């Protein structure tokens, strides 16, 4: 049966080409129509193929489509081929769906921007690259999408290129990502030369024969892949680009830097679950790095005043969660959180965009407040998303976050310590998110009068996408209700066939990782305990930022050192600057001025000038007058003949 998978990536590509080649010659309405329609159709086609996939028997759910041979070099053959299986189907639906919603929202948000056409062109290119990433059926094609989304991220962060901070941020994002990609590439080399292929099916089928479980080679390969993931998904040590990426337009932050691109690392690890399961050391590193990032970013988020920066650090923190899930071999839980996070974090960003829109570009929460009245729709949807991210029961975030916490406690790779750190981060998350809500929507308005007079609710084209996402943020979690609450975790079951690393691909009905050795009672207790703690954190936020604002100020003053550290984001940027960037530039200057110009050229030119000096010494003989030459020739002839005669 022909599924025409290629349409899913071709449509956004066509949108990109059409808008890009006719840039500046199309009316705004037409530009946005092309952009939205191409992504919308791509989503619709994705849904169609998804249902075709569902109709297949559970064990055989995979659609593979080869378009053409991309690089043939001897035994190295890579095809341009696509794969639609449960994992990529989830990603396709999330990516295309959220992209479509954000495209619609952007029509309103970017309406007055002179770069309207350029914006949609980049956005379509992004969707193309991201869908290529998730639909690829081999690592190299995934890498194409991987770098492609990086490019779009670069272009869109630096969208307002006249601002130096924007183009700086874009460049930083690209270069930091490149460092990650470096690891990814080397990882691919190891895999190829060991397995002889980069195709998922071949790699996963042959990996058990080729690699020894826990061996050095597989550990190195997976660690390198993980380095790639830390770059793309903003984990320690390569997270520094994501906060700066907020220089881009807000819908871009929502789409690329919250919902889709930054989750590519999680997708990649879930996709490679077979390899990661063979390297327990790497899994531990992934879990620890993930949780450390989650904790660090959450603490930084406590002390930020820029609404988008709080959300950016929150994204880093939530991504850390997803990695923690992968690190305890709960890949399905990671993907589950990826999906719910895509909904509620996109909503949070779009909501903040609506706020910023109303505030005429102001992003500092210290000058906001009381927006509840002027922006009811934004407020309600934003509040729903906040409840979701905080993990209040009944909202999507609760299910996915609880799943991760439980797995980090109960899985073979988990431990109570991981669980405790995760819980603490969840409490912090609830605290800073409600701090944000209280500062922005509650209390007195702290903006100047001019701004105050112009406060308004955003147009329908922006609020309707918010509502759609709000609905998704609520119901998105119900596909994965855990067993203990009477559900059957259908999401995990759906992804089960892909997670061959967990069950060796043999049986697809039984769960290996269902809380072995742990009782349902423990699970319930932990769940209720965490909810209670989160509620307390929310109350604290309420008390500090609404009831008793002075107390918050006093605490800040008493802990000024800690506050400075958090507000300064642990000064990681400065440390990198002093340790890496400055030495690099100074070293390069040294190489150029001293080695190149002075030493190498000095030697070459020195030789030349020695020859030149000798020539200058004998030069006077050449007088330039012809008669002198003639005399000399004659004299020479006479001397020669004389010599022969006398001899």
């Amino acid at each position, binding site marked *: 049966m022909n599924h025409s998978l290629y349409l899913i990536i071709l449509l956004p590509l066509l949108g990109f080409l059409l808008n890009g080649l006719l840039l500046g010659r199309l009316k705004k309405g037409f530009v946005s129509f092309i952009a939205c329609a191409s992504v919308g159709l791509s989503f619709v086609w994705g849904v169609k193929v998804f249902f075709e996939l569902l109709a297949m028997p559970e064990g055989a759910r*995979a659609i593979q489509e080869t378009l*053409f041979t991309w690089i043939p070099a001897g035994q190295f053959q890579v095809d341009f081929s696509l794969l639609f299986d449960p994992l990529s189907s989830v990603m396709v639906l999330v990516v295309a769906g959220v992209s479509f919603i954000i495209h619609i929202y952007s029509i309103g948000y970017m309406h007055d921007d002179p770069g309207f056409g350029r914006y949609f062109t980049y956005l379509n290119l992004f969707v193309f690259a991201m869908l290529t990433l998730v639909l690829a059926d081999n690592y190299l094609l995934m890498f194409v999408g991987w770098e492609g989304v990086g490019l779009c991220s670069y272009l869109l962060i630096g969208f307002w290129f006249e601002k130096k901070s924007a183009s700086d941020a874009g460049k930083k994002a690209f270069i930091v990502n490149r460092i990650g990609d470096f690891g990814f590439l080397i990882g691919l080399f190891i895999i190829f*030369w060991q397995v002889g292929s980069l195709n998922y099916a071949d790699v996963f089928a042959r990996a058990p024969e080729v690699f020894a479980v826990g061996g050095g080679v597989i550990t190195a390969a997976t660690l390198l892949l993980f380095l790639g993931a830390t770059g793309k998904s903003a984990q320690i040590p390569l997270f520094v680009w994501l906060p700066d990426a907020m220089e881009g337009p807000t819908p871009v932050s929502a789409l690329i830097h919250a919902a889709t691109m930054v989750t590519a690392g999680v997708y990649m690890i879930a996709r490679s679950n077979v390899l990661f399961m063979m390297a327990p050391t790497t899994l531990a590193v992934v879990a620890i790095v993930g949780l450390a990032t989650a904790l660090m970013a959450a603490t930084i988020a406590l002390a930020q005043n820029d609404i988008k920066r709080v959300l950016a650090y929150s994204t880093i923190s939530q991504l850390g969660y997803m990695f923690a899930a992968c690190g305890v071999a709960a890949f399905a839980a990671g993907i589950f959180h990826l999906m719910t996070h895509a909904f509620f974090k996109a909503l949070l960003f779009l909501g903040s965009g609506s706020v910023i829109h109303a505030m005429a570009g102001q992003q500092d929460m210290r000058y906001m407040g009381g927006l509840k009245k002027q922006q009811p729709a934004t407020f309600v949807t934003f509040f729903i998303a906040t409840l979701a991210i905080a993990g209040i029961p009944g909202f999507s975030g609760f299910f996915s976050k609880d799943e991760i916490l439980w797995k980090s406690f109960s899985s073979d790779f988990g431990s109570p310590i991981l669980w405790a750190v995760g819980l603490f981060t969840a409490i912090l998350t609830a605290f800073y998110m409600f701090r944000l809500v209280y500062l922005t929507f509650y209390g007195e308005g702290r903006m100047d009068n001019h701004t105050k007079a112009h406060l308004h609710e955003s147009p329908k084209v922006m609020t309707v996408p918010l509502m759609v996402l709000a609905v998704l943020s609520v119901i998105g979690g119900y596909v994965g209700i855990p067993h203990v609450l009477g559900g059957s975790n259908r999401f995990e079951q759906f992804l089960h066939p892909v997670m061959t690393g967990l069950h060796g691909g043999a049986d697809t009905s039984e769960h290996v990782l269902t809380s072995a050795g742990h009782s349902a009672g423990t699970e319930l207790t932990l769940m209720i305990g965490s909810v209670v703690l989160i509620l307390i954190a929310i109350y604290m936020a309420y008390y500090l930022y609404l009831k008793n604002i002075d107390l918050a100020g006093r605490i800040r003053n008493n802990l000024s050192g800690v506050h400075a550290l958090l507000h300064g984001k642990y000064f990681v940027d400065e440390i990198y600057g002093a340790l890496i960037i400055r030495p690099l530039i100074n070293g390069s200057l040294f190489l150029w001025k001293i*080695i190149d110009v002075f030493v190498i050229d000095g030697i070459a030119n020195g030789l*030349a000038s020695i020859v030149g000096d000798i020539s200058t010494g004998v030069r006077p003989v050449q007088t330039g007058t012809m008669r002198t030459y003639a005399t000399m020739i004659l004299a020479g002839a006479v001397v020669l003949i004389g010599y022969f005669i006398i001899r």
Partner: protein
Amino acid sequence: MEQQILTLVTFFPVIGVALLLLVPRERADTIKAVSLIVSFVTFLFSLLMYVMFDPVANGMQFEINIPWIAAFGIHYHLGIDGISLLLIMLTTILSVIAILSSWTAIKTGVKGYYISMLLLETGMLGVFVSLDLFLFYVFWEAMLVPMYFLIGVWGGPRRIYAAIKFVLFTMFGSLLMLVALLYLFFLYHGYAGEYSFDLLKIYEMPIPLGAQTYMFLAFALAFAIKVPVWPFHTWLPDAHVEAPTAGSVILAGVLLKMGTYGFLRVCLPVFPEATIQFVPLISILALIGIVYGALVAMVQRDVKSLVAFSSVSHLGFVMLGMMALNVQGMEGSVIQMINHGISTGALFLIVGMIYERRHTRLIADFGGLAKSMPVFSTFFMIVALSSIGLPLTNGFVGEFLILLGTFKANSTYAIIAASGVILAACYMLWMLQRVIFGKLTKPENEKLVDLNIRERLVLIPLIVLIFWIGIYPKPFFIRMEPAVKAILSMVHKVDRADVERKEGIHVAQPTCVGTTCTISGGGAGCGK
């Protein structure tokens, strides 16, 4: 036709020179038109040759072998394989583009300029088609003369210094090459009892390791200066900065490839043992070149010298891939030669276009050009991204294969080289940021006019090639594969079919899994 096509392609530009001599020097437009048409027809002939080329056949094609100076066994022996085919195509395309790009840039000495360009084209093509070492040497030296004039007459303020430096560096190398060439010539006489410079015959001759070492060093030095391999690169920035735009395009696009081509055609197959012996040395020099070129490029103030140093880095990749001595590395290396010609050529064209408008190339003099010249900036961006090897552009295919092949040969080298990919992003994006992004602070930059039709025509073919090689490079790989395998079989002294078994993957028999089977049997493509 089969026999004459190479002669036709190579010497057609000379016919153009003869025509140009008849045109009075005042009629600049006629001169330009004639040279454009001649170079374009040359390109069409080369296209015909490309079509006639049998992609899967082994050995040389379109061979012609007639005595030239019979007393010394010197023959007019031409022939091409897949590698030379691709380089010839690159040369003919870039020549058309270079001529079109100098339309308004060259105002004085128009006639001499175009004559030099056409002579240069013949010289370069001659190097790629020669199978007789003497002929090879003649073309190698002949091409110096027009290039010397291009830099020395139509160049920038320090043109004399740059031109002389270029010639002296190259001559120094070729002198040693000449000595080694003569030694080889007499060695062959001792071996076969006849005098011959014929490369294909010399391939058959076993040479003692000691002699190989010295001759390899002599040839390698000549080629390494041309490439240029660190530390023989210092002529390159000067020559590039001073040369006129078209000169830089040809210099970077084709001339540097003559060095790498020389390694492939002469050094590797003729001195296999010496090659293997010198792999670490050349690889390390290439690695230094990659990192050093990128670092120095980062701190350049002149866009053109930045691109020149980036060439040092890119050519380091080419050398590294070649020295991996496996199929992936060498095919990556060959495709990277083409890529570098396209991307760096386009970068020089772009720099030239902006220089024509502003008469400066200092990065600090620009900023915010995306606002005043959007089309220019878009082209600039695409070319820069291809130069740093973004997937789906040509640069990625080459760099990936080179690193893949190198990783097999020596993983440490590959890791160091891969860091060059990061640095490439640093210097390119930083330059882009300072040139096309930011605010328009300088009033001179505000009223710059965007690219005109001719300038777009110059760039579009290169952009098309960038994406073509990036997305569907298969036609190129098919054509070069037999040639690469032939060279490797000579280096490793194994059968052509065994090349991959020796250097290949340790999984002996690839198995098909699921619906796909990605590995073709070892060397399946070469036996036909």
